[in-house]
């Protein structure tokens, strides 16, 4: 037997959920592939944008939510811009990524680690602070050699201040509160913050 997908056993709620959360109508996709054709990141995708759309149409929830592509999307919106059916494909991708995160499906952990490193810096300082992001990211990802080749250049050009610029007047604390409320709410609602 081949490993045919039994499409009668698909998740029929999935497309409705995606439609509702992204405010798009995925059934309008007729598979012209324009999203894939214009996608700058397609070469690192394991499932092309149009295939993801098809997956959503067929209710292939597992395949779609576990794919690497969701995490590699650059959010450049080229797909949305050129979709002949006016589907905001980037919004669908973002929705799927949010869904995947909420269900703890982190297929490309480094990307998420980078985001968290970034947001952690913001949480503490109120603003980003590149050395901090890098340090946290290296700690999280254990990718010590990330951009090490750039270090001499950057330091030479004095582009990276070593001291974080903390937002004055209690702004940093305000951001901390926003992040805390977000985290608490996410935990309350049972989704991955």
């Amino acid at each position: 037997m081949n490993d045919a997908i039994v499409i009668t056993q698909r998740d029929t709620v999935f497309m409705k959920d995606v439609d509702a959360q992204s405010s798009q109508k995925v059934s309008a996709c007729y598979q012209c592939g324009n999203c894939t054709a214009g996608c700058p990141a397609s070469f690192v995708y394991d499932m092309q944008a149009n295939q993801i759309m098809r997956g959503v149409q067929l209710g292939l929830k597992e395949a779609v939510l576990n794919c690497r592509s969701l995490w590699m999307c650059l959010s450049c919106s080229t797909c949305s811009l050129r979709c002949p059916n006016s589907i905001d494909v980037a919004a669908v991708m973002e929705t799927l990524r949010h869904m995947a995160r909420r269900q703890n499906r982190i297929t490309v952990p480094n990307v998420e680690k980078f985001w968290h490193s970034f947001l952690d810096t913001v949480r503490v300082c109120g603003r980003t602070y590149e050395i901090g992001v890098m340090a946290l990211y290296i700690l999280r990802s254990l990718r010590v050699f990330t951009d090490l080749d750039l270090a001499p250049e950057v330091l030479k050009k004095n582009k990276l201040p070593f001291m974080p610029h903390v937002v004055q007047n209690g702004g940093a604390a305000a951001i901390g509160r926003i992040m805390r409320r977000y985290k608490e709410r996410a935990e309350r609602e049972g989704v991955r913050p």
Partner: protein
Amino acid sequence: MKTTVAYYPGCSAHGFSVDYEKSTQAVCGALGIRLNDIPDWNCCGSTPAHAVDTELSAALCVRNLDNAVKADANELLTPCPSCLSNLRHAAKRMEDPRFRARVDELLDNPAPAVFPEVISVMQGIARRFDANALAERVKKPLKPLRLATYYGCLMSRPAEIMDFGDPENPTLMESMLTACGAEVVDFPLKTVCCGASFGIPERAVTARLSGRILALAADMRADALVVACPLCQMNLDLRQKQAEHAADAIFAMPVLYFTQAMGLALGVPPGRLGIEKLRVNANGLIDKIEAAASGSTAPVEGSRP
């Protein structure tokens, strides 16, 4: 209504793109546009925040908008397209009452009903100085330079949010640089993504995408790429070596902020524009401009290092 401007520099202004910030301040100073920072501004959340959660992203942005409102601003300028995109998206999404309620839950105090209009510094300058007005202020025309403009993917998209002209072919920067005397090439990849924030986690993506842009600029015999985005600039300039490595080619393509190019034309000393902070040396460009301005003919060959 009187326009009261607030300025949102964005975090990178104090980090990687300190040269963008310097040149923006210098150009706006030269044009008499006062940039008052939003008091106590914070990070807009950039890509990571909206990649994680749109409500969180909006909350971070709305706090800035709120502070701008408290400072009586009705126009908000920002140099960074990513910040611009986030702030505009947040303002748009807040029109949905359900979304607004969810965001208000995260904030210290509820968001104001009306937000100031957020536009890019580029639009801010263009609104005050049309091409003729700019041309009148040019001291050192960029005549000898052949420039390729690059907007990146965020500035003009999505069109209904960004309102930055044709999403496929924005032309604002071209008109400004033309006013500054430069020869501007019709650069087809002006809105194609450079790899964005993937420089750190997935550098191969960025190297390849940036490489394509740099290669075409070189093929079109551009003297420099002119950009409006700190992240794009970093990918195209700081990471140009990585791109060259991936493409197995040498581009040696200076990547200027449009404010740096304009600053040169307006006669701002290069030192005040942070030109020295560029990874790919742009001194050759300055020499050409100076030579043209002083009347002598610049060397045609070898202008690019």
